[in-house]
């Protein structure tokens, strides 16, 4: 359920600020020799590598190494560049996108990829029979509704004038379309293999990407091998990547220290964090990157007393965000608005609600609740979420709010959030919200817009502001590339205006800490790519092969 992307963040911003630091280009790495291998570990299984289905932070970037889409992000940034497409054109009304495909790109089975494959792949994702969790993103494609309902055999919005041209026609302007073509759900799959493998395609994937799956031992390991025919010269650098599945993060760290593995994919466990960061041998092998993530508390505006804006503001002022950040070993920065700092549209000048216990008490008094009240705080039951919830609970108790913690499995919490009178408060950690693609709209439509405030939706605060929805639509219609900054500013204003009504209490923006062995390396800032977690597998090279 939870998608996780690392943002352009630190790396990208540094590059922008200091041109002296040359951004990565293939020429800079021309000297890197191919060869060598690395081992990455995860506690949980990768489940599937089907790009239409895989939707968690572990398989997301592996899929990016096995498949390609029409668009991609420039390594180390959130800047869109053509990938399987050579170039693209946008019509003046912003409703037609024409992609010219690269010639000679081959699937792992040797067949050349053509426009028909692109069409097939998009239709497959949008076909309800595929049950793709990403289908909802493609609602702006012409004919989407008819295709989903089974009224049309083809998705009218995807046309193939010739083998190397794909035309995407929209039913409404959508400024996020190019991002959608860089999203895994649009990645290109070969029809004949998908049909032959059926539902097993997720374990026997065939794509056009830098690596191909050589072996998959269920529940134990997955081995990727270099795609010799990869269309990008000199990429990838490694011959082989082995993913080992099923061991505790603490033990994986131990294996790293013993030299058995190269990257513990689950990161540094909290119990060992201070120790590792103070160890001269290891602290330089830790890469820190911001994520497009915000941790927040939702307050359901349908449930008393959160229908009163003063109460919601009081909660915002009562939470000691610095202490919560301290509780998670300072692996985050305090947040004051829904957007994370590295997302376009983030308003640096916005102050939000400062920590102010007396002010919070005054707000409660204003609402006639100076004696406080009792409520429920839902939270996912995986560490460290219950811990964070307890810190929030403590803060709320200082202004007289008694919040009972309901620590339950994700599914139960998500279900409670999607009910109109289900959950008064939810701590979002572990379930939401990490952007699927680096665009501010991804932080609004589903989780703060009226469209998400429905039974079974993800807008757990049930906040619905028609005026903001209208402004969001307007911002999304700004498809002209010249309007990029204007659009970002419009979005930023939507989020800061929204904080006046305070349906959320934003708490922090998490940072990712990736530790790796000295055996592997990569160019700074590309290694911990904004779009790939824990690292960009294509960019890694082995130091012992040099």
């Amino acid at each position: 359920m939870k998608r996780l992307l690392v943002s352009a963040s630190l790396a990208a911003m540094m590059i922008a600020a200091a041109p002296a630091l040359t951004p990565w280009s293939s020429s800079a790495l021309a000297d890197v020799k191919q060869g060598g291998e690395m081992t990455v570990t995860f506690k949980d299984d990768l489940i599937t590598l089907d790009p239409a289905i895989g939707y968690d932070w572990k398989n997301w970037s592996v899929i990016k190494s096995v498949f390609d889409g029409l668009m991609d992000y420039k390594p180390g940034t959130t800047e869109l560049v053509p990938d399987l497409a050579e170039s693209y054109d946008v019509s003046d009304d912003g409703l037609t996108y024409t992609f010219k495909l690269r010639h000679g790109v081959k699937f792992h089975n040797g067949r050349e990829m053509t426009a028909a494959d692109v069409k097939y792949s998009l239709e497959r994702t949008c076909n309800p029979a595929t049950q793709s969790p990403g289908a909802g993103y493609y609602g702006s494609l012409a004919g989407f509704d008819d295709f989903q309902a089974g009224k049309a055999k083809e998705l009218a919005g995807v046309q193939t004038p010739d083998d190397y041209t794909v035309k995407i026609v929209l039913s409404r302007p959508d400024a996020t379309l190019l991002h959608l073509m860089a999203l895994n759900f649009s990645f290109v799959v070969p029809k004949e293999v998908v049909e032959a493998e059926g539902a097993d395609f997720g374990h026997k994937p065939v794509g056009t990407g830098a690596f191909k799956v050589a072996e998959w031992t269920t529940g134990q390991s997955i081995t990727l091998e270099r795609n010799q025919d990869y269309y990008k010269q000199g990429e990838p650098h490694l011959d082989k990547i082995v993913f080992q599945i099923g061991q505790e993060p603490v033990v994986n760290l131990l294996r790293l220290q013993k030299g058995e593995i190269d990257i513990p994919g689950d990161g540094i466990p909290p119990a060992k964090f201070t120790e590792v960061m103070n160890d001269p041998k290891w602290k330089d092998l830790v890469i820190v990157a911001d994520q497009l993530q915000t941790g927040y508390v939702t307050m359901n505006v349908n449930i008393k007393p959160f229908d009163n804006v003063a109460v919601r503001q009081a909660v915002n002022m009562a939470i000691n965000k610095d202490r919560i950040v301290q509780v998670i070993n300072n692996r985050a920065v305090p947040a004051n608005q829904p957007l994370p700092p590295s997302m376009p549209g983030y308003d640096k000048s916005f102050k939000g609600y400062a920590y102010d216990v007396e002010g919070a008490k005054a707000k409660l008094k204003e609402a006639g609740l100076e004696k406080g009240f009792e409520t429920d705080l839902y939270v996912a039951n995986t560490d460290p979420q219950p811990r964070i919830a307890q810190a929030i609970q403590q803060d709320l108790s200082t202004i007289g709010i008694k919040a009972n913690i309901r620590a339950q499995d994700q599914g139960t919490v998500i279900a409670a959030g999607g009910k109109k009178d289900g959950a008064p408060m939810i701590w979002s950690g572990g379930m939401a919200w990490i952007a699927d693609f680096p665009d501010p709209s991804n932080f609004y439509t589903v989780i703060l817009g009226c469209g998400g405030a429905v039974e079974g939706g993800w807008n757990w605060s049930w906040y619905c502001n028609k005026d903001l929805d209208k402004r969001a639509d307007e911002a999304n219609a700004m498809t002209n590339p010249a309007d990029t900054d204007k659009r970002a500013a419009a979005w930023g204003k939507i989020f800061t205006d929204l904080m006046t009504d305070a349906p959320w209490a934003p708490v922090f923006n998490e940072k990712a800490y990736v530790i790796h062995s000295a055996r592997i390396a990569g160019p700074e800032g590309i290694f911990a790519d904004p779009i790939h977690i824990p690292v960009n597998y294509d960019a890694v090279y082995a130091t012992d092969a040099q």
Partner: protein
Amino acid sequence: MSVWRGLVRRRVAMVGLVVAVGFVVLALAAPIIAPYAPQEMVPGGMTADGSPLPPSDRFWFGTDVLGRDLLSRMLYGARTSLLVGLVANGLALMAGTLIGLTAGFLRGVVGSVLMRSTDLMMAFPALILAIVIASLVGPSVKNVILVIALVNTGPVARVIYAETTSLAEREFIAAERALGAGTARILFRHILPHLLPLIIVWGTLGISTTVLFEAILSFLGVGVRPPDPSWGNIVFDGQSYFQTAPWLVFFPGFAVALLALSVNLVGDALRDLLDPTLRGRH
């Protein structure tokens, strides 16, 4: 009160009894003697980068991952853990013994129905059963006790059943029957006393596993609600820190083991004192 006198005479058992009673007293006195409130995140209770503090003058048992005083949490936690350990375990023992004894002695249709129901109950993997029930009934101490009792009844019933069937075949029972002894008499005068040692061993052993099982339930969301402490959830929350902050595991772990040990010492003595074959020999 010959049992009591027998107990007094056994010094080891008395030590166990004193320790066990001591735990109860500490639990009851928690609000008076605890230096901090159990849920209070004490200012200065963590290092700047969020690590717990080791034992010191200020925090005798150190602090936990949220900067709370561990001693205070353990004192309050003793209340929950003792309650869950004693009641849940007691319920499981009573229900299990009743089912096992009845089924083992009567056999026939009743026995078969009872044991097959037990099999059905036990055929569920305990973990999955607990999680599913957890999601359905919601968290409270009462539900914790019921879930643990439910999961533990089956095994007790089976062990008692196995022992009872074996006893029922023995000569002395057949002799009693031949002498015209009634079912109730055989059950309570002859079979139950022979089962007592087994029941006591299970009962006293069950204390520590029950306390730890409660911790797993807490983790799954049906246990004691955070921030209320129990020994189980203190161990559970701290266990991944056991190298960097061993006090988080050591103190509560030691408390669980000490409680189990003291209860077992008393149990061993009681077993000997109550054992029909040994009666009067000490």
